[in-house]
């Protein structure tokens, strides 16, 4: 392949080359930005699942996992379930939002150790005491609310003192304000209710049978449902699979269009250069020389488009993440970038094939006569 000739051809029609590259770039932008959401969701879900690793989660029966913050379970259920054999520990959780501080939750601080897949350390201060109007902040929430230990925050019309700041956890709790279970119930108007109940089995391998037992024995009477972390994972995978399928479908359409554009441009280029291709064959180019030259042009356009598209994707994804602001971020992983580029390059190769074959098979005499 002759790089000087390749460059000369691409520069011959700058506008046309530029427009084709733009078409490819838009294709890759679509694939990568959609893909970055899928990747972001996967990472987010994995972080969330780190909490519940090996645990059983009990929520209101008619609530699905994505609507978990609307779940309400009678607090008395905790005592009932605690008697089930094989349960090591059990605790209620309250979570919700308040207009003043955003994410707001209540936990039983004596039971934080239940979360084996996850460690929570205080960066400074201490945890709230039972009965006191005190909160501890995730590091992001502290930044967002511009609050430190000793400051007070208005929550639900009452004044709470910040007594501690957590280290970074890498989950949405970084952006949360947390207090004791009772105080959170009070502020969120959930007296006698919790958002969910978390159960730690004595033996992790028994989690499934315990969850089934809860569903059979208490499911309908208490209007609750129990799931293991595997259930949550399956649900999350279903969600990300759907997202991936959509990304693939939309990406395929975009790539298909890009492929058609490339093919059209390459057919046009071959048609315009019939005479030159004939001359090259007359002076000794083999069919393979011509095939490689045209394929190289198609691939060069695709590659340039892919690089431009990736740069554009980084900018767009950063822009969107700026908007989202919160714990969820779209992520362009190296594998996503590589796979999208490889996919587009394959499309470019396919699109270049037919024009390249046509060019390579031109009869030199007919081509030279062509004006």
């Amino acid at each position: 392949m002759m790089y000087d000739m390749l460059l000369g051809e691409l520069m011959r029609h700058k506008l046309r080359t530029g427009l084709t590259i733009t078409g490819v770039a838009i294709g890759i932008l679509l694939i990568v930005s959609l893909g970055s959401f899928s990747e972001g969701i996967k990472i987010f879900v994995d972080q969330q699942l780190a909490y519940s690793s090996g645990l059983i989660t009990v929520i209101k029966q008619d609530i699905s996992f994505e609507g978990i913050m609307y779940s309400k379970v009678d607090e008395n259920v905790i005592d009932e379930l605690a008697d089930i054999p094989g349960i090591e520990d059990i605790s209620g959780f309250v979570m919700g939002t308040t207009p003043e501080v955003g994410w707001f939750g209540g936990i039983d601080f004596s039971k934080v150790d239940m979360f084996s897949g996850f460690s929570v350390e205080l960066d400074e201060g201490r945890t709230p005491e039972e009965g006191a109007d005190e909160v501890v902040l995730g590091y992001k929430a502290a930044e967002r609310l511009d609050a430190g230990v000793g400051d007070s925050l208005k929550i639900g019309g009452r004044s709470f003192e910040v007594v501690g700041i957590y280290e970074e956890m890498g989950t949405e709790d970084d952006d949360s304000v947390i207090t004791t279970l009772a105080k959170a119930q009070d502020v969120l108007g959930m007296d006698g209710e919790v958002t969910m109940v978390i159960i730690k089995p004595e033996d992790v391998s028994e989690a499934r049978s315990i969850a089934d037992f809860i569903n059979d024995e208490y499911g309908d009477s208490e209007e609750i449902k129990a799931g293991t972390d595997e259930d949550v994972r399956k649900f999350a995978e279903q969600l990300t699979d759907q997202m991936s399928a959509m990304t693939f479908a939309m990406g395929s359409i975009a790539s298909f269009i890009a492929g058609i554009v490339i093919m059209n441009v390459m057919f046009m280029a071959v048609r315009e250069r019939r005479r030159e291709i004939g001359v090259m064959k007359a002076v000794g180019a083999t069919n393979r020389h011509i095939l490689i030259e045209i394929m190289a042009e198609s691939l060069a356009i695709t590659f340039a488009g892919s690089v431009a598209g990736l740069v554009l994707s980084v900018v767009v994804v950063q822009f969107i993440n700026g908007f989202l602001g919160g714990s969820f971020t779209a992520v362009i992983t190296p594998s996503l970038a590589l796979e999208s580029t490889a996919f587009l390059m394959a499309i470019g190769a396919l699109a270049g094939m037919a024009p390249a074959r046509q060019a390579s098979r031109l009869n030199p005499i007919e081509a030279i006569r062509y004006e």
Partner: protein
Amino acid sequence: MAKRAVFKLEKITKQYRMGEDVVTNALCGIDIEIENGEYVAIIGPSGSGKSTLMHIMGCLDSPTKGRVFIEGIDVSKMKDNELAVVRREKLGFVFQAYNLVNTLTAVENVALPMRFAGVGRGEAVRRARELLKKVGLTDRMGHKPNQLSGGQQQRVAIARSLINDPDIILADEPTGNLDTKSGQEIVELLESLNRKMGKTIVVVTHHLGLAQRADRRIYIKDGKVEREERKASRKRRR
């Protein structure tokens, strides 16, 4: 140098099928032998088959019947890519319409056949510069075809035909698109390739001045060799 046939055409027939039943005979059993170092002009009226003959000699087309030997090798049944190699290594082409690649400079155009032969850019460009100097285009090496006159473009084409150092140069109406002065310069250049470099030159032409300079003139009419003339005055050099 010992005489040997660089071209041997045996009973060459070329038929074109036009539609279902109509067959046109472009060449009807042509026998020609050309020796190394000869300067041969092929002359004939329009439609006589001389261009078809040139294409077959130049391995751009295959005969319907008959055999073509180039330097003793039968090329009449060769495949596309084998013919491409013969064109690249054994033959040099000069066309009426110059046929340069418009996106390439003069030097890049000249280097092209050498690049197809797998020679690196540096070496091919160095050789192309030498040849452009020889054809008097030292100051036009970086120019593209549209920045050159017709005569200059034809000189570039001649330099290109020489790049792989073939023994045979085939020229199809090389002065056809040129004014008298430029045409004359090209005629002299081709003649010097024959006289000074010992190249075998086969030229298809209407240009009488060009034809007169040839050692031998082959007149083609209706796809057959009508007659041959040898130049009496010129002493064969080799």
